[in-house]
């Protein structure tokens, strides 16, 4: 039995960490959040060079043919440095949808382009997980109509995969006639979330109409699991910064890390976060290998990581005192990324309710 990373995965983890730590410094984040597109050419092409954009894409379609745990390893690192990169939508959710529902032609058309970094994809599944403002997309006769809110990685995308109801997936090209894109400003400017309004927009069915409920679910599960990995990375970095700061900052003639009250705050964060690591691994493993458990784990890992991360965001800020409340240390970029990840694809309560239904504890 071996529960954890393989030798190859350890190497992947190391190389991606080396990349993000050198290529995504805080100064760059500061510039990029002003643009707020959730995208940076240099970071993206760097990831393409590392060959990780096609992590979930089989080699026959130009991908790296790796597994879901590899994908979450990468996502965790992106969360660790709050990288503005549309990896979640493009490299995790889009390939999951296309591989699950797409025809061979579609796979050949899109997957190699995704692998090479030429095609960025926004994902609009919010109406599956919780519709607001009467949003929702309908599809008939090759045209899509309606509204998709909170499209993940939508700001910089070249194309969109949208759910039309809970069982149909369509592709819409960016800039298509009748398509209106509006940026939705969230607290987290490291990611570009948009609203799409579709008025008779030409759309391409992925799979069959009304027959792709499983693919939609699989894509949501993949997104949630990856968001959990992102939260893991983001929270891990916050915890590290809290500990680093506490060991340096002096008050009352001693480092604040020597105060038991403050140690307990940090120990609580660490104790809650540590088991999350194994949970993310297992959830990622399920996405690929244990279909029966994939959805339950996706629900629980997303909501559990959210519950653990929120206090970490607050307490790490508290440990930094007034400094934490300022922009000076940039801590708030992590704080805000946690804030958005917590809500994307469903807030913890909403997602747990799905887990209850799934387990037959309550009727849908």
């Amino acid at each position: 039995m071996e529960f954890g990373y393989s030798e190859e995965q350890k190497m992947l983890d190391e190389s991606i960490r080396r990349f993000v730590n050198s290529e995504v410094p805080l100064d760059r984040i500061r510039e990029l959040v002003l643009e707020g597109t959730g995208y940076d050419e240099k970071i993206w092409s760097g990831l393409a060079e590392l060959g990780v954009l096609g992590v979930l894409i089989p080699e026959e379609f130009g991908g790296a043919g790796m597994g879901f745990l590899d994908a979450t390893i990468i996502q965790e690192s992106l969360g660790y440095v709050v990288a503005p990169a549309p990896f979640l939508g493009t490299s995790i959710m889009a390939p999951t949808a296309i591989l699950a529902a797409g025809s061979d032609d579609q796979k050949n058309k899109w997957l190699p382009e995704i692998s090479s970094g030429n095609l960025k994809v926004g994902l609009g599944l919010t109406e599956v997980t919780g519709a607001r403002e009467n949003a929702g997309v309908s599809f008939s006769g090759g045209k899509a109509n309606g509204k998709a809110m909170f499209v993940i990685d939508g700001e910089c995308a070249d194309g969109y995969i949208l759910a039309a109801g809970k069982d149909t997936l369509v592709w819409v090209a960016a800039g298509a006639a009748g398509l209106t894109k509006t940026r939705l400003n969230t607290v987290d400017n490291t990611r570009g979330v948009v609203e799409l309004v579709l008025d008779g927009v030409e759309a391409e069915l992925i799979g069959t109409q009304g027959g792709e409920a499983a693919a939609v679910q699989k894509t949501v599960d993949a997104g949630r699991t990856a968001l959990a990995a992102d939260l893991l990375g983001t929270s891990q970095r916050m915890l590290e910064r809290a500990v680093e700061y506490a060991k340096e900052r002096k008050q009352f003639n001693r480092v604040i890390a020597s105060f038991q009250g403050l140690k307990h705050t940090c120990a609580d964060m660490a104790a809650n976060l540590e088991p999350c690591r194994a949970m993310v691994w297992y959830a990622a493993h399920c996405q690929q290998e244990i279909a029966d458990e994939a959805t339950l784990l996706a629900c629980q890992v997303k909501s559990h990581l959210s519950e653990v991360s929120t206090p970490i965001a607050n307490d790490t800020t508290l440990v930094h005192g007034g400094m934490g409340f300022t922009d000076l240390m940039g801590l708030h970029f992590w704080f805000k990324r946690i804030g958005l990840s917590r809500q994307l694809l469903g807030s913890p309560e909403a997602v747990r309710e799905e887990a209850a239904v799934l387990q037959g504890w309550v009727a849908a």
Partner: protein
Amino acid sequence: MDLSYGKEYDEYREEVRAFIKEHGHKSPDSSKQGNKPDAEDKAWQKLLIERGYAARIIPKEYGGYGGEADLLKSVIIDEEFDEAGVSKGLGGQGISMLVPTLLELGTDEQKEKWIKPTLEGEIFWAQGYSEPGAGSDLASLQTKAHVEDGKFVINGQKIWTSSAHFADMMFILVRTEPDAPKHKGISYLLLPMDTPGIEIRPLVTMTGEATFNEVFFEDVKVPTDQIVANRGEGWMVANATLKHERGMLGDPRQSSSLLHQVVELMKTEDVNGVKLMDSPIFRDRLLKLQGRVMAMQYNSMRLLSNDLSGNVELMPILVVKLIGTHLNQDICGLAIDALGELGVLYDDSKYLRNSGMWQTRYMFMLGLIIGGGTSHIQKNIISEHGLGMPREPKPQKTA
């Protein structure tokens, strides 16, 4: 138990209601705090003072209403103004902290000079306490002042100074007696912000606004009569002031008003066509928060009763800031979770709810969890002063 305030007070309540009915429309938006008062604010403040709804017990000679101390009347004013959503007049650290301090410890001359214009909004104050090296351990502050030609000469730096970028004056703590023990070497001075040698650099907070500052002092000269109490007594004066600040942070009235806003939100918003209030999960979270708010409201009733009878109980006072600030943040957290993705919208985004206040408040409340004595410090105070536990021992000196 007798919860009625008595007939006299029922009449007073009617009076307050009548005032609000007649004049309430002139009230500035009560949410627009933290800015320099404008003409509308000042006119409203003036009216409130005239009628005894602000600066009630401050003597007339200092610009107050000159009423007798009557806690119940003050409470009735608070209750009725809050209920009507009408502004209770000017706030800020000058009115809430400096004025009571001067009344307690200032000279007659200082009271005459500073209190009236402060109450009227003509002078806005900043609090210059914290320094880069002195936050929780405020008494270790290093900004120095020595006397030269009949003036204090200040050198050093303050940080996290709210409102310094538009304040007229600052009350500041400086070290004047470098050889005395740290708590005994501090003095409390008053100084105009346009004194030569002061440089103000705004600091942007996590919400993106620049509400506080770094303030640098280079040979800043202050007349020696602008000291409150004596040299070396500044720590004692500051504690008198801090006492007023701590009472302000975590006020259950604010929790209650936030809670009401979440109730309204959950009654009106829906997800997948279901009203949030119809979700048993969010409703239970709301009800739990209501329970916490109620506990703090009755806690403050108990404090009021103690104040009326002169009874002193420490614990119910010590918990207010810690519990209240976290409670307020949790209330905002529920609003955000209930709104889901809509809850993370910010700035001027489309679909913004309540002008985006839930995110800003959520972060702002974290600021209050940190400011004015962090939660760790509050817990130290509760355990040491409230529960009589010994202080954490000083680390052993290693040779």
